[in-house]
């Protein structure tokens, strides 16, 4: 489905305020000293509409870093599936593209109850990027800066108004009741959107073609010494995976509250850790860092395309911000192209 509307900017606060009565409103807000983070919107006028890429990615609302799955005791178990209704305003196109892939991963062949319960009760409003960050490279992947489908609702900022594109039933559900706030778009609105898209594309600083990187690896010409040079710089922080809107790994642990009571949790995990594949009697199949860094890149660049027909990267640039070793996707894709030594 697809339905387009126009929303005057002056009507936005009113609309969000009404929606907030029914669901928890989360949006980009000022954090510490220049930071902008996604959190509960206390004052609607404080939402930062023109915000850069947010860290961490909004996957935290569907797949939180720590999630209680169920409690258990001698009395039986108690399921903790979270089905609070939430509206998440101000995510970016790359995030929406990533959520599309997460939906396929967690809601495909195997259904993940915890993810699905949250997903079914969450509506995302994405804002097309008029001002991409220096770290962004979604333009080369078709995962941004504006999307033509796959979103719940996409906003395009046209100065005094938004072009509101509704792309799902979820999205429609929060517009329908308030149709008096919206009007029909004119041809000139689409022209303005087209202009916004073009000028956005012109602003990208990075030009990364992951297909080049993939072909280079497939050609077999990338030696292990290249990956050794990458691995050497890895701090084993896990940040690349924690931040990546597409990484889905978790670890399951039990916590004992008493002799008869406990809770099962899942925490974000990462393939960058040697313990990720630890086996009994002290066998660590991926003990060497090189095996792990290489695996991360192979998964994103080779296995994802095989499995989903798309790269395991949407070009959000978060790993570029968060990797202390500066061995993020954009850098490595570039180095794969030019070789390790020419930086």
């Amino acid at each position, binding site marked *: 489905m697809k339905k387009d509307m126009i929303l005057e900017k002056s009507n936005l606060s009113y609309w969000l305020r009404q929606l907030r009565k029914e669901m928890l409103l989360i949006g980009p807000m000022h954090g510490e000293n220049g930071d902008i983070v996604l959190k509960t919107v206390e004052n609607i006028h404080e939402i930062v509409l023109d915000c850069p890429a947010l860290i961490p990615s909004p996957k*935290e609302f569907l797949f939180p870093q*720590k999630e209680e799955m169920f409690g258990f005791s001698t009395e039986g178990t108690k399921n903790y599936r979270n089905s609070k209704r939430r509206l998440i305003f101000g995510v970016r196109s790359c995030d929406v593209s990533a959520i599309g892939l997460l939906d396929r991963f967690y809601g495909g062949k195997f259904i993940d109850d915890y993810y699905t319960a949250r997903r079914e009760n969450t509506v995302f409003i994405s804002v097309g990027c008029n001002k991409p960050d220096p770290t962004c490279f979604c333009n080369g992947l078709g995962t941004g800066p504006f999307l033509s489908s796959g979103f719940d609702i996409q906003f395009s900022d046209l100065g005094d108004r938004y072009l509101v594109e509704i792309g799902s039933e979820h999205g429609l559900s929060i517009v329908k009741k308030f149709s008096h706030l919206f009007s029909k778009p004119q041809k000139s609105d689409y022209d303005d959107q087209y202009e916004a898209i073009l000028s956005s594309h012109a602003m990208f600083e990075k030009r990364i073609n992951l297909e080049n990187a993939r072909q280079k690896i497939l050609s077999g010409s990338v030696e292990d010494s290249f990956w050794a040079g990458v691995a050497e710089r890895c701090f084993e922080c896990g940040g690349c995976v924690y931040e990546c809107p597409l990484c889905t790994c978790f670890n399951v642990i039990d916590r004992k509250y008493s002799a008869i009571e406990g809770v099962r949790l899942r925490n974000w995990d990462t393939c960058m850790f040697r313990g990720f594949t630890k086996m009994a009697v002290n066998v660590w199949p991926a003990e060497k860092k090189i095996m792990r860094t290489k695996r991360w890149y192979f998964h994103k660049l080779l296995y994802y395309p095989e499995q989903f027909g798309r790269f395991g990267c949407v070009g959000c640039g978060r790993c570029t*911000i968060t990797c202390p070793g500066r061995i993020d996707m954009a850098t490595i894709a570039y180095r794969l192209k030019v070789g390790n030594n020419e930086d």
Partner: protein
Amino acid sequence: MVNYHKMDKIPTICPYCGCGCGLYLHVEEGNIIGVSPIRHHPVNRGALCVKGWNSFEFIQHPERLKYPLIKENGVFKKSSWDEAIRLVAGRLTDIKKSYGPDSIGVMSSAKCTNEENYLIMKFARAAIGTNNIDHCARLCHSSTVGGLAVAFGSGAMTNSISEIADAKVLFVIGSNTTEQHPMIGMHMLDAVDKGATLIVADPRRTQISEFAHIHLRQKSGTDVVLLNSMMNVIINEGLVDIPFIKRRTENFDAFERVIREYPPDVAEKITGVSPHDIKKAARVYATEKRAMLFYSMGITQHITGVDNVRSCANLCMLTAHIGQPMTGLNPLRGQNNVQGACDMGALPDVYSGYQKVIEPSARKKFEQAWGRKLPSKPGLTLTEMFDAVLTERIKAMYIVGENPLISDPDSSHIREALEKLDFLVVQDIFMSDTAEFADVVLPAVTFAEKEGTFTNTERRVQKINRAIRPMYGSMPDWRIISEISKKMGYNMEYRATHEIMEEIALLTPSYRGILHHRLDGNFGLQWPCLDPDHPGTPFLHRKKFAKGLGTFIPADYIPPKESPDKKFPFLLTTGRIYFHYHTGTMCRRTSTLEREYPECCAEINPEDANTAGIKHNSMIKVSSRRGTITVRAYLTDRVSKGTIFIPFHFREASVNLLTNPALDPLAKIPEYKVCAVRIEPVL
């Protein structure tokens, strides 16, 4: 005010290491559900290390201490706060009456806030009336505090972390930076990427050494010789900054005479480093302008700790590499607030801001402010306190957030002391091995449940913010202390921690302008901050050293107290590993960290292992003159031949059963980095 029912992100500071990274705690309905880095923070710039990323997990761990415990007939019983406070105050008062205030020893904590450290030291000095107060800085950087105070007048990092990336030479000695101060390591790699030269001096092949242009693998315990020899080269080759030495330093001649004794070929025999490498490192360091020197435990944890530190200071003065941006001497402090705990005077000889207790004017100032007569004799250091227990000079101890049974050298000795105490109070967030010996255990809160400030290694005083209510029945340390103090007849009335900060600012010149409201939303202030409008100080000793002239203090080589011999042929050195922290109270309750490194491993060079018949991953026995532990062998050439490395985080293989309690004569820091051991396979 925190709204406990929303999804909020509370900015605060990582509770692990001295980098002091900014992070958000994600809170949903009173639950901490995650962590993310603060993107614009000058230290971590949107990154975190694995400990920071996982710092949320231990906070709400079910093993948290939930209520005060009182030991009756050898078993702990749940008690009320009232009862516990009454008991502690009563017993401490009795012991003070019968044996005098100096029969009580207080250990503060580098994990607690500045406000709490200040209060604990006030409690010891004013409420109890003793200078017997110390904390774990004794075990890591007391040699820095002592050594640099005499050389420069201030024992802290001279530069800021954000300057590192623009330095031209980084000389890293005795610091495994990428693992122990990962976010500082990040800035170092950035500097190297931008063309800086990296010199690493470390007996182990650490991760940072892989990036080094020059890696000097001196024998553990020979740092003085290595540094003296570099200075010998610098003097001989005329690379000395003479105008700087004339204008800003003293005692050069005496120093030069000693340095003459250490030409590179002599040094080679002791350190094992070739004259060629020594010369190369000396030239690179001396000739570049923006040169920063970094050091950590590899320098300080020796019986010659103070000498090592002084030698580093000498090297900086000799080449005028001090007093400018990207140019200076940078001790990397370990614990998140070890800098602050020292600044606050949780030390036996100084009040906050390093004002000496023997100085009548300083004492008078504090006496007036606190309304009590204060003792004038410096108290016992942490390492001496345990000896004093055995000689019955100390009858009672109050330990806040420390676990000396695992962290201090020669654990059997500590155990004996703990058993002997008449009265022991331990205040902590989890039951610890030390707390098992306590008469009263008081449940304190984590960094997420209180307000206050931490001072990171670059002197940045940063605010931590409360994200959730205190868990179970726990209380912030500062509240516990003031309640007990009140019961002991010394009133401490503070409504909140900012009132304590006000008092600190009033009494501490270097913190004069540091007040809570100035710290909100701007990543803190770096001391010295001399008045309420002062912007803070990113680098020290500009134009003039803190004490006026810098002093060259020559150091001669003194070999480690215990060298390998026939019976104990290996050199054991101890330290931390990336995934864990100290005695493991927090990190070992964090599933990811625990899984990554679940058990204690001894790093052994494959050649040595081969000779001893030891296989990779097999269990071995490591023994010293003081004890024996069983650990898993990990064969790696990170350690050189003849050396064994064991981390100290693991209570089940506590390496401090082996270490030598030999102390630096001035700083009283124990020699964790060198002792002699033998190894044998477990059959």
